[in-house]
Each structure stands twice: as structure tokens, then as C-alpha cells.
């Protein structure tokens, strides 16, 4: 059965795009056909992780949202960009990085209902096993829709007081929307913190299990979104955590 998985955080910069890209690559390594949609139309970024430049984007999600093409026409097969042998496939549905097109979204908005139809067309048209949705931080109609139709929601937070408050809001909304599976991820945990303590604290606050605690990693900072971390550092502890998350999504 195909699965829609949204990756969300209340605040920005928590690691959504890196997590989405790593999960997509790891799921494809296991032979899955994976789609990745960059719904962060205001500030797109995940294409960078897949090494995609503007010349390779014939169409973008924006073209679909404004009725210029079918959503399946915007999908780019980025499997070969992963540069390791992969049994499955990764398709990226990028958002436009043209200033004028981003400005249009900010000015006019877009028909949020089209996202729902688009996701379904992608699942069917590309015969996907998983569709991962990289979202804009915070809550708006479009992130709420992504959450509402997800089979699983990955919520990312840092061990930061500001994140603690905001994440509570997302957890509550996900519960109200009856999302079948919620995977809470604590990212960028300083080496000085005890991961078991962080896990216990977060679980106590939200009354919800934590799927993974990822340490802050200098290697990951140094990679600086120039590639997929778990493919470049397969033996790194952060890669092990990503694998653990991917396994939970496949279960």
C-alpha cells in the first residue's frame, strides 16, 4: 500500500529537508519507488540536496498549481544524482526557485485543494510506494492539508525552549486530524545532552513516543546540504538514526 508521509516542524531550520531527503534515499535503497514533493513554495530548498539545478527543472510544482501542466510532468527522476546503486527510484517534484514565481505565490496564494488531487495523481501516475512531503514550517492551510491526508507524520524539533512550545501545537493538531502514525524526532541534540534523558523529557511533555533522537553533527554541518548525508557517511551515528526511522516507516 502506498503511503503519504509529511515531514513538518513548527519552527524553521529543524532539519526537515535533510530528513526528508535522507528518508527518501534510504527507502529507495530498499527498492521502493519514492516521490518527494517540495511544498515549501515560499522558500524551496530540498532540490539542493538532490543536486538539482534550475536547468534540470523543466516544470515545477508552481506550474501545476497555476494550471500550466499535470503534476506528473513536474517530477524529475533524481535517482542517478544519488551516485550510489539504488534498487528503487526517487522522483522530486521541485518548487520554483525563480523570484517572480515565488513572489506570485506570496502575492496570490494558490488553490490548496489542488495539492490533495496532485498527491493522489503522483501516487498513481508514478506508481509510488511512498510520497514524502517536505513542508514549510508553521501552520497554514497547506501544511494542515498535508497533515490531514498523511498516513504518517514526522514532526521534527530541536531541544530548544521555543521548539518545545510550538511542537505541542502541531502534536495536538495531528491528534485532532486523526493522523494514524506520529513520529516525533528530536534533532541537533548537543553531544553534552544525554539522549535518553531528552527522549524521556519529550515523551513526558507530549505523551507521545519519540521515534528518534539525532545528535548534532559537525560532519552534517560541514556537508551543508550538498548531498545526502546517510549515503556519504553510511557508518555515521546520524545515518544509523535515519535508517532506524526509515525502517519504522516501512513497518
Amino acid at each position, binding site marked *: 500500500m502506498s503511503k503519504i508521509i509529511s515531514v513538518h516542524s513548527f519552527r524553521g531550520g529543524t532539519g526537515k529537508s535533510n530528513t526528508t531527503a535522507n528518508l527518501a534515499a534510504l527507502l529507495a535503497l530498499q527498492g521502493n519507488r519514492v516521490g518527494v514533493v517540495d511544498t515549501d513554495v515560499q522558500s524551496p530548498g530540498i532540490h539542493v540536496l538532490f543536486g538539482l539545478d534550475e536547468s534540470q527543472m523543466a516544470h515545477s510544482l508552481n506550474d501545476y498549481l497555476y494550471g500550466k501542466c499535470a503534476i506528473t510532468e513536474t517530477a524529475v527522476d533524481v535517482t542517478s544524482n544519488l551516485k550510489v546503486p539504488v534498487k528503487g527510484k526517487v522522483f522530486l517534484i521541485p518548487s520554483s526557485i525563480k523570484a517572480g514565481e515565488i513572489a506570485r505565490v506570496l502575492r496570490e496564494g494558490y488553490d*490548496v*485543494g489542488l495539492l*490533495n488531487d496532485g498527491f493522489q495523481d503522483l501516487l498513481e501516475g508514478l506508481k509510488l510506494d511512498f510520497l514524502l512531503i517536505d513542508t514549510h514550517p508553521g501552520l497554514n*492551510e*497547506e501544511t494542515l492539508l498535508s497533515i*490531514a491526508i498523511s498516513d504518517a507524520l514526522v514532526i521534527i524539533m530541536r531541544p530548544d525552549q521555543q521548539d518545545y512550545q510550538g511542537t505541542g501545537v502541531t502534536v495536538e493538531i495531528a491528534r*485532532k486530524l486523526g493522523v*494514524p502514525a506520529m513520529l516525533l524526532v528530536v534533532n541537533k541534540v548537543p553531544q553534552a545532552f544525554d539522549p535518553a534523558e531528552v527522549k524521556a523529557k519529550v515523551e513526558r511533555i507530549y505523551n507521545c513516543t519519540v521515534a528518534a533522537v539525532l545528535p548534532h553533527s559537525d560532519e552534517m554541518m560541514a556537508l551543508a546540504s550538498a548531498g545526502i548525508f546517510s549515503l556519504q557517511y553510511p557508518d555515521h551515528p546520524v545515518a544509523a538514526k535515519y535508517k532506524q526511522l526509515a525502517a519504522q516507516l516501512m513497518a
Partner: protein
Amino acid sequence: MDNEAFNTLKRDVESMTEVEGLTMTDLLTFPDDLRLLLNWMMRENGVQIEEMASYLAQEVNEARMLLEKMIEKGLIEEIKKKEEEQYQVLVKSSRNYRVPKKIWQVIE
């Protein structure tokens, strides 16, 4: 759900004002059973009347009455899929990009 809960659900739908589709923020303000029913339909991406009846643990006729009311109120629409009648939540074509203020009331 039991008959009492089902009757409450019917009354909740009856007392609603007509809309032309739903926004996600509206959905968050609905009573639990109605919201969960609509969430379920959204995630299934369309359901048949028999599936809806079994979700509600009601006879098909009862489910159909509720369904017709929901269509009347503009919450769901009929779609044709693989030659079958299916019903799906009607997501409002809102170009409203910002979070409406009432979202904060919902989660308080």
C-alpha cells in the same frame, strides 16, 4: 459507533450552515465524530457508501441518509472512480495563504 453517537452526528450535520467546501481550519472546529469521519474520508481519498456504512457501523440506508445531508451541506461531493460511485471531502478552493485567526481558538 453506537446509535446515540450516530444520531448526534446526524444532528450536528443538520444544524450546520451550508458551505461550499471545507477549509482545513473549519475542519478543526467540527465536533469529534464528524471531524474524524471527514478525516477518514480524506485519507481514503474517496469511499463507497458500503465502506462508509461499515465505518459508522450502521445500515447502508442510514449511512446514505447522512451522506445525502453532507452533500447538501457542501461538505462532500460525489466522484466517479473506476466506474464506481465514490464520495470525497470537498476541499475549498481557498487562496487563503495565511492561517485564519480562529486556528488559535481551536487549539486553546
